């Protein structure tokens, strides 16, 4: 009897900018229905690696991704027939919330109609469901036509989450999603992520070790050597935090370096 394939399986992935590698030789496996944290110091290529998973750095000039990526057991190309489909299925949330400078409603509607066609009722339904799932519905229900940029930082980030969730992704990539938010707002997002992991695979890049301790099921620890990042150690969260094998992980998790 075989296990279900992991949500994400990478083999020897490297990302280079203008020929200069930012990360290289990344082989990692992220299970479904789990929060997979990526931790490590600045500049070690966490964001670059994350963007490779939904081919978002393809539009960065001079950026080249090598290696194999499989999603749910299928090569990236077979998993999603085209880039748009891939982006819908593998959603991405950034450090700073990026609401479009439009109304809250338009922020939600534009991606929904793009992927599911123009159907007024279905769109409204999806929009409401997604906003409810991030706990924003009650707060904005009566002012959907107000500019999204007038929301607080935490609300904006939740709106961005809702915007992505409305497309029903199977994988959610998060690049330090709470590091620009105040602790209450960050707490709300953390709670949300815990709820979401029953439905999808989450990959969470974070600087905040405490956050990783609180949330992560698996941890992948990036470190730098020769000017580019690599995976120094990875595995279940417990193992990494309590009994890391490598010297560098031990020093990092004990707070001596990084």
């Amino acid at each position, binding site marked *: 009897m075989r296990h279900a394939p992991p949500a994400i399986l990478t083999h020897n992935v490297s990302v280079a900018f203008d020929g200069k590698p930012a990360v290289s030789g990344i082989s990692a496996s992220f299970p479904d229905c789990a929060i997979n944290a990526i931790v490590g110091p600045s500049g070690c290529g966490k964001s670059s690696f994350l963007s490779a998973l939904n081919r978002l750095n393809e539009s960065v*000039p001079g950026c080249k991704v090598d290696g194999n990526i499989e999603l749910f057991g299928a090569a990236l190309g077979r998993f999603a027939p085209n880039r748009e489909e*891939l982006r819908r299925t593998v959603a*991405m949330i950034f450090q700073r919330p990026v609401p479009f*400078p439009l109304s809250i409603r338009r922020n939600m509607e534009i991606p929904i109609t793009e992927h599911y066609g123009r159907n007024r009722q279905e769109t409204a339904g999806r929009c409401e469901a997604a906003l409810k799932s991030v706990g924003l519905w009650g707060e904005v229900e009566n002012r959907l036509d107000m500019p999204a940029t007038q929301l607080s930082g935490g609300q904006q980030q939740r709106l961005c989450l809702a915007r992505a969730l409305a497309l029903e992704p199977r994988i959610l990539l998060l690049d330090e999603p709470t590091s620009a938010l105040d602790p209450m707002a960050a707490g709300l997002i953390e709670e949300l992520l815990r709820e979401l992991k029953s439905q999808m695979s989450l990959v969470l890049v974070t600087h905040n070790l405490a956050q990783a301790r609180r949330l992560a099921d698996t941890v992948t620890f990036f470190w730098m050597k020769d000017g580019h990042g690599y995976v120094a150690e990875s595995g279940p969260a417990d193992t990494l935090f309590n009994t890391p094998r490598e010297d560098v992980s031990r020093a990092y998790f004990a707070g001596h370096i990084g």
Partner: protein
Amino acid sequence: MTGVETQNRLAALAIWSAGLLILGAFTLIVGDIFWRGFSGFELGFLTEDPADAGRAGGIRSVLAATALILLVCLAVTLPIGLLTGIFLADYTAGGGRFAPLVRRSLDTLAGVPSIVFGLFGNAVFAHLLGLRISILTGGLTLAIMVLPFFIRSAEESLRSLPVSFSQAAEALGLSRLTFYGKIALPAALPGLMAGLVLGLGRALAETAALIFTSGYVTRLPESLLDSGRTLSIHILDLALNVPGGAENAYRTALVLIVLLFAINGALMALTRLSPSYREYR
């Protein structure tokens, strides 16, 4: 070094003086037009056609021709200008080595004397394409003249948008069409409008390019293939060729400036209606 404080004060003084100087020049020039244009101004000036070579009557037909020419100009400038602006602002759209060439061409075109555009429009649109001396020919010629300005300002306003918008749109799997149509252009609206105002201003002020293309006729235009004169040509003709035409020249200039204010105000009001406005002062 307390000299620093003095320096700061001197700098502030110089900067303020420059601002005041500009405002002064503006007041002087526009004030002069208002002063002279208002004396003896009657509403009939707007509803009657010119008579006695423009000395008598009003400027109804001239206003109509001006509006039509501007519309033709806009109909060409807006789509081509926005597309080219996107082309220049967005490297992935293809810019690369080609964009600097287009940009340089535009800068050069911006410096070509308008009389050359006039001769060109006359040769190509009026005669080669058989559009005659007409509102259409004038509008097309104006469009070529205004495009360099509009494109550069469209490029600038698109370029000033944070890249995170484009990134977020890509991450949501939106097409470029959706991104530009529904997100970037609405967000860049204030800048685009400012560019449009500048471009329209230039179009309204143009004479040399229009003498040969939209013409001199003061009859009320019935179609886009009729010839018609614009406010600026009317002013020029009254000032240069019609003895005793100065009064109506100033009145026409007054109308033109009020029109400019109105267009400016209307576009800004439009901008303010968009939810993108608050983000960008």
